[in-house]
Structure formats: structure tokens, C-alpha cells
């Protein structure tokens, strides 16, 4: 294992020190419990939005803290959801009197830890609403699974809800909007290579030189199946077909298309994939009204990509376009 780290156990602490050194003018980094908080939090009268999750997915979530997006993020250890006291502290830190949203990706650990935190938050008289993201069509949503994973749509939920909260929409309105984004978003991912967590030092799975893993999540888990590597057009097809069928998306829909890199894939390849996504979308009569291309929700140094499609409505589009000023996503500010 070769990584730009000091020690496997210290990665998250060291990264937070770097984050503080780089962005200390716009966020407050605390170490015990670990959290990254907007420097002007709590913003009075604004719904606070927090998220959290294991580290190793950067820029998500810490890189999305700032005006127009998150008020705080709670980083766990690598691929390990954070603990309830982190979320409870963050909830208090961002409560401006209008209540607090928890954006939670649907993983057993995240859900349980956020649940415990919400119980604590409520105990202190803070109104908390949870938005659970579960957009990964690679997972069957049935009694036989922990339900679908929350992946790419999480980034979109955080941006759009951030815009709405900045616009002083109420807790219920922001929560409802976030749930609508999740309900109208679908994702699927694939890997060319595994990743290596610093603590384990070993690849998360073994892939032959000509194999790809289809239907992966963002924690280095193996996917649904593997196959021989094909051209980008085939990869795009593999990911787009289940996405399009699932919602389903239909001709005339306006969508946001998000091609996400898993951390180790260069931008040039994401644009090659985007070209294929645009072709397929056109064949299906979809109108891509907004797009996002880059590595925003990652799996350490894994090579691969995920595709997220979100069926847009007017409100989502408006808050997607609204100013955002975070280290990871920034425009009009």
C-alpha cells in the first residue's frame, strides 16, 4: 500500500488539520468530536443542514460545508459512519432556531448512529428532520437487503436543500424537497480497480486485468457482478439502462446528469463517459438541463465512475442554480 499519509490510524485527523489550515477562514474544524462547521453557524432563522459519513469519500461531506450547502459535516473514520455524539454536537452547533435537517445515506451504520443522534437532539428541544438517501439501483430494495444505498444523489440533495435553506424555506419544506430529490434520483456505479483502506492495507477485492466490477457502492464493497472490460459506451449502457428503467425516466423528462469519478479516475475519462451518457439520454428523449462532472463522492483511490440521473422540477432547478460557496462546489459566490 502506497499512500500520501503519515500513519493509517491518523489519516482522518491529519486530513482535518489540512482542511483547517486551508479553509479556516470559512469553516471551524473541531476534533473531539470531529466536525466541520460553517464559520458563521448557527445562522439565525435558517434551517441548519448537517450530514456525515465515513471518510474516504472526499470532497463529500466536509468539502460541501459553506453558504448554500451544508452547515456542518461529521467525518467518521475511513468508511465508518460517525458516532451519535458528533451528530448531536453538530446539530446543536447549526441550530439557528428553525430546526435541523440530517442528510443520511442509507447504510445500517449511518442510519443507527444518526437515529441515536436525533434522539439526543430532540431531547434538547431541537426539531430534527431526516432525509434518507437511497438512490443506488444496483441494490434491490427488498426485505432481503438493508435497502438501497445512498450514493450520488446525496450530493444533489445537499446542494438543493442548501439552496432552499438559504432561501429561508421552513424545516418541513426543505425536508420535503430533499425527499423529492431523493425520490426522483437514481444512480449506479462501477469500478475498474478496488481501493485500499489505510487500516487494512489490502485491496477491497481482486479484479483481473481485464475485468470490471458493476454495481459497486462507495465503500470498496464488491459489486453485483463482474464482467470483461468493454468500451466506455458499454459501461455507460450498463449503468444507464437500470437507472432509466427504475424510476422510470421517460421521453420529455428534464434531467440533471451527474457523472462522478470514484477518486482515481482522471477527468478525461469522465468526459468520455459523459459523451456516451448524453447520447443515451438523447436516444431516450431526455433533456439534460444541468450536469455535473467530476469526483464528488469517492471511494478513496478507486478507479471507476457512477452515474446519477435526477428528474428535475422547477424548484429543484432553481435551488441547484442558487449560489454555493464551499471548497468542493462553488458558483455565483
Amino acid at each position, binding site marked *: 500500500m502506497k499512500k500520501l499519509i503519515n500513519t493509517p490510524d491518523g489519516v482522518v485527523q491529519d486530513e482535518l488539520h489540512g482542511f483547517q489550515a486551508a479553509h479556516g477562514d470559512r469553516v471551524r474544524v473541531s476534533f473531539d468530536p470531529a466536525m466541520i462547521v460553517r464559520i458563521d453557524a448557527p445562522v439565525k432563522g435558517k434551517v441548519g443542514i448537517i450530514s456525515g459519513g465515513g471518510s474516504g469519500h472526499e470532497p463529500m461531506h466536509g468539502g460541501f460545508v459553506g453558504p448554500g450547502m451544508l452547515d456542518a459535516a461529521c467525518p467518521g473514520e475511513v468508511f*465508518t459512519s460517525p458516532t451519535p455524539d458528533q451528530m448531536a454536537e453538530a446539530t446543536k452547533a447549526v441550530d439557528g432556531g428553525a430546526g435541523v435537517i440530517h442528510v443520511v445515506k442509507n447504510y*445500517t451504520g449511518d442510519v443507527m448512529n444518526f437515529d441515536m443522534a436525533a434522539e439526543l437532539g430532540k431531547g434538547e428541544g431541537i426539531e430534527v428532520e431526516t432525509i434518507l438517501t437511497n438512490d443506488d439501483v444496483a441494490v434491490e430494495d427488498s426485505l*432481503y437487503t438493508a435497502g438501497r444505498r445512498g450514493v450520488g444523489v446525496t450530493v444533489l440533495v445537499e446542494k438543493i436543500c442548501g439552496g432552499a435553506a438559504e432561501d429561508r424555506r421552513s424545516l418541513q419544506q426543505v425536508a420535503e424537497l430533499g425527499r423529492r430529490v431523493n425520490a426522483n434520483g437514481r444512480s449506479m456505479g462501477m469500478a475498474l480497480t478496488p481501493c485500499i483502506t489505510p487500516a487494512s492495507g489490502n485491496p477491497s477485492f481482486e479484479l483481473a486485468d481485464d475485468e470490471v466490477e458493476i454495481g459497486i457502492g462507495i465503500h470498496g*464493497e464488491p459489486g*453485483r457482478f463482474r464482467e470483461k472490460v468493454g468500451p466506455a459506451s458499454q459501461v455507460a449502457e450498463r449503468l444507464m439502462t437500470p437507472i432509466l428503467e427504475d424510476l422510470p425516466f421517460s421521453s420529455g423528462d428534464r434531467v440533471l446528469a451527474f457523472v462522478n469519478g470514484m477518486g482515481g479516475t482522471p477527468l478525461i475519462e469522465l468526459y468520455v463517459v459523459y459523451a456516451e451518457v448524453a447520447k443515451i439520454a438523447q436516444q431516450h428523449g431526455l433533456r439534460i438541463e444541468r450536469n455535473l462532472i467530476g469526483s464528488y463522492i469517492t471511494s478513496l483511490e478507486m478507479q471507476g465512475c457512477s452515474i446519477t440521473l435526477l428528474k428535475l422540477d422547477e424548484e429543484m432547478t432553481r435551488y441547484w442554480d442558487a449560489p454555493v460557496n464551499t471548497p468542493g462546489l462553488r458558483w455565483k459566490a
Partner: protein
Amino acid sequence: MSISRDDVLRWMELFAAAVAEHRAELVALDTAIGDGDHGTNMDRGMRKALERLGASEQADAGAALKTVAMALISSVGGAAGPLYGTLFLQMGSALAGNPEIELADYAQAWRKGLEGVQARGKAQPGDKTMVDALIPGVEALERASDLSDGLRAAAQAAETGMKATIPLVARKGRASYLGERSRDHQDPGATSTYYLFEAAAAALAG
């Protein structure tokens, strides 16, 4: 024969040692069907638990278990943090203020812990989780008439339950994403639960 506060402290030390010793094994099991952090998570948590146990006087066995619970909840994260946290919290509550813990009290505390874990995680037997080691362990204790024998039987039953997770297809937790591909792997959480019973047998079986 009964269980004292110091017995519980020794139990936790042995569990922490087992987790540290088997850290890499737990990581490897979790890499196969999960995200490869179960060993690191439990090791970090149990080190924090020992630290907290050492930092202040524990009134009794129940208080000690609650201390462990809070340490795990605030340091483990992931699925294991809330689940083990709940297990120890429920056990600690059941035993609070009880200076002379008899087999029946102890078995009942485990039952409460198990119920807490199932309430939190909604796992049923056969879902390929820690519950599959927990249930047979608790039931063996409940059937026992002697503490020492009962703990040995519980550890054995947990081991059997742990091994029985191998052929299962996971229906809860991260491994469930794999569907059929989760078969033929031993569940990491069931494995750490087996070590918990083993540590109990070694520490409390007198």
C-alpha cells in the same frame, strides 16, 4: 458462585485483547463481504472502553458495562458501534445496582441485550449478522444450571452460530448488498460476538 464488578472488568480486558489479536482477521472477513473496518472499529472501541474503565471508579458491574457501552457508542461508529453499544447498555441497565450477579440475572441481562440489538438493527435469525451468534449463546446460558458450565456452553453455541453464518445469504447490513455473493463467507459481527462469549467464559467461569 456469582459475578462481581472485577469479573466484568476482567471480561472486558479479555474481550479487548481478543479483538486486538484478531483485528486483522475481522478486517479480512469484513473486506470479503463488507467494507473492511470491523476489526479496526472494534479494536478502537475496546481500547477506548478500557481507557474509560480505568479513568474512574466503576460502582458495580452494571455501571462498568454502561461505561463500556458509552465508550463504544462514542468511538466505534458504523453498524457495530450502536449495536454493541446497545447490547452493553441494556446489560448494564439490567444489572445496575446488583452486587451479586447470579446465573439467572446474568442470563436475563444477555436476553435484554439481545432484545436491544434486535430492536435497534431489526435482524432476524438467519440474516447473517451478529444476532446469529448472539441468540444461541444467550439461549445456552438460559438453559444452563451452572454459571461456569453455562458460559462454556454459551461460547460453544455462539461459535456454532458463527460458523452457521457461512452458508447464509445476508439480509441485513452491508453484506446484504452482495446478495448471492455473500454466501460462503463468515459474518464478521458474528465472529466478534463469539469472541465476546469466549472472553466471558474465560473471565467469569471461575
